[in-house]
């Protein structure tokens, strides 16, 4: 009889993912369970490892820009921003002020895209279906902006060392008559003006939409039962574990690179940093929702400025930025510049630089070592999700299996940037 009793209380090791819808990509998690309680969580990563850093060593500085989009594929332009800032630092150049404002606006649009996706999928993981549909509705508008400006709905490749690829277009693409579009005038009502007009209209609509999300979740009993007190990280541990961004702010630090170490045009922006108190999943949810409201404020300020201040969006130095088509066709010098820039690429002076942006998920940093060649000698990407996922074991220990899903959700995991 005694041996049977011992056999009944053995621990189980369970495999979670890598093909699991709640694993947010390709996370393989090996869970050691005592009943339904997690004793140890061991994330196995690298299933999406594409060696971006090694590839970049074999590409010119310009050719690496689109690779940055594919890191954290939910916050595309922010990755490009950090990369371009690092190259600009080494080159000793500053982009024109209008380019800085465009970058800030796109960073914040991207932050909204990221947070909306995060909110939708986190809700879905925990069992809330409607929020997912609501969030994706707004993502659609923002991706239309992406498409109108950069030509791509997601992988923009819009930023360049020295500025952005082109200025904002004067018109917003409209819906055309086809099956399924019943009321064209209604659909195109806010698409009559420029892209900036469309974004302005969006910023006016958006706060009410955030209220709508909050009515679904903030006071929802089930949502709170699933998130309050789950995955608590104390302020001291948050620093030890290398948390940044909403994960650090959720634990009570008013730390935001946009305020603490301002880059681009953030010093001219008026916005607040939301801070959590308890460091649990619910606080991090509140922080991110408030961040959406603040991002919306920043976008509105950028739109206002951009409407009033036309100007160049990329520097005039043709060793770094290509000359205009017209100049190229009428001028031998510019033709040579164009040819050299797109074959050999720019030469970046010897040295090393680290540039970081306040990414939607935390601090995204790019460390470049250059030996003066036309390619980086070493490129290291500091992905915010990497240390967050590393804390999985500590955060999940002692929780139930169902809470593991909530914790994965709250970390805002995207495997593009963890595996790189």
């Amino acid at each position, binding site marked *: 009889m005694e041996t049977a009793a011992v056999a009944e209380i053995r621990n189980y090791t369970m495999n979670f993912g890598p093909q699991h819808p709640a694993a947010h990509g390709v996370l393989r998690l090996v869970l050691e369970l005592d009943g339904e309680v997690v004793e140890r969580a061991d994330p196995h990563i690298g299933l999406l490892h594409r060696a971006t850093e090694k590839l970049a060593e074999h590409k010119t500085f310009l050719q690496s820009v689109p690779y940055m989009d594919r890191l954290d594929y939910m916050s595309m332009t922010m990755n490009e921003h950090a990369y371009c800032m690092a190259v600009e630092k080494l080159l000793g150049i500053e982009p024109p002020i209008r380019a800085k404002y465009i970058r800030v606006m796109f960073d914040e649009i991207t932050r909204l895209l990221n947070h909306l996706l995060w909110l939708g999928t986190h809700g879905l993981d925990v069992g809330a279906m409607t929020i997912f549909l609501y969030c994706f509705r707004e993502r659609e508008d923002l991706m239309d902006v992406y498409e109108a400006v950069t030509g791509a709905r997601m992988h923009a490749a819009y930023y360049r060392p020295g500025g952005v690829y082109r200025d904002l277009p004067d018109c917003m693409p409209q819906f055309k008559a086809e099956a399924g579009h019943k009321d064209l005038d209604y659909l195109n009502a806010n698409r009559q003006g420029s892209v900036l007009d469309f974004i302005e209209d969006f910023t006016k609509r958006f706060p009410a939409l955030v209220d709508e999300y909050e009515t679904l979740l903030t006071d929802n009993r089930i949502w709170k039962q699933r998130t309050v007190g789950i995955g608590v990280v104390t302020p001291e541990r948050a620093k*030890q574990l290398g948390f940044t961004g909403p994960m650090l702010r959720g634990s009570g630090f008013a730390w935001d690179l946009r305020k603490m170490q301002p880059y681009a045009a953030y010093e001219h922006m008026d916005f607040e940093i939301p801070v959590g108190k308890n460091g649990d999943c619910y606080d991090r949810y509140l922080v991110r929702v408030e961040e959406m409201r603040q991002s919306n404020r920043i976008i509105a300020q950028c739109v206002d400025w951009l409407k009033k201040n036309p100007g160049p969006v990329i520097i005039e130095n043709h060793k770094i930025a290509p000359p205009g088509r017209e100049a190229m066709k009428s001028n031998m010098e510019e033709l040579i510049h164009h040819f050299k820039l797109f074959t050999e690429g720019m030469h970046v002076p010897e040295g090393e630089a680290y540039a970081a942006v306040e990414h939607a998920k935390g601090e995204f940093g790019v460390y470049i*070592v250059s030996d003066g060649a036309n390619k980086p000698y070493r490129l290291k990407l500091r992905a915010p999700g990497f*240390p967050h996922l590393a804390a999985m074991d500590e955060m999940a220990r002692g929780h139930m299996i169902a809470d593991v899903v909530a914790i994965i959700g709250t970390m805002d995991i995207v495997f593009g940037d963890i595996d790189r």
Partner: protein
Amino acid sequence: MPLTPEALYERLQESLDDKIVAGKVALGEVTLEVKAEDWHGVCTQLRDESGLAFDTLIDLSGVDYSAYKDGTREGGRFAVVAHLQSVAKNHRVRVRAFCDDDELPLVASVVDVWAVANWYEREAFDLYGIVFDGHPDLRRILTDYGFIGHPFRKDFPLSGNVEMRYDPELKRVLYQPVSIDPREVTPRILREDNYGDSGRG
């Protein structure tokens, strides 16, 4: 107000004194170079000294300097580079240590100083083969189970050594030598200093 990089560098020189092998302030960033044997001590001091208070390890990476400037550089091959940040004081520093032995690059683990170093050190071990002495769990992290070699070393080919395919007859996955030839579209070019005044607008 955070310290200016120059003031921070002076402050660091005062505290660390003879442990700094080389250091500079460039592009608004402070870089320190220390000996591999001092690595752990310096990191602990950077974290604990109240005026410095580097409470967060932002990034830790390996660098292989063997092909730097087309291999003309003198000195050790592997370096460990850490980027530290102080949330309390709002300043940053970069610390680098070259490993003494190129065959078995070894440096002390700083997991006990910053818990976040755990995965970063696993990554540097995986990609560069740098061994972190005292690491509690030094497994590979990004590469495949059973991977051979350290892929980010400069002598590791970009296209790798093995490729994987499914064999329908054996009904299992096979590893075989790569069938693609390495190809470089744009060659790597090092020009003389100030070539065409590039880079300075």
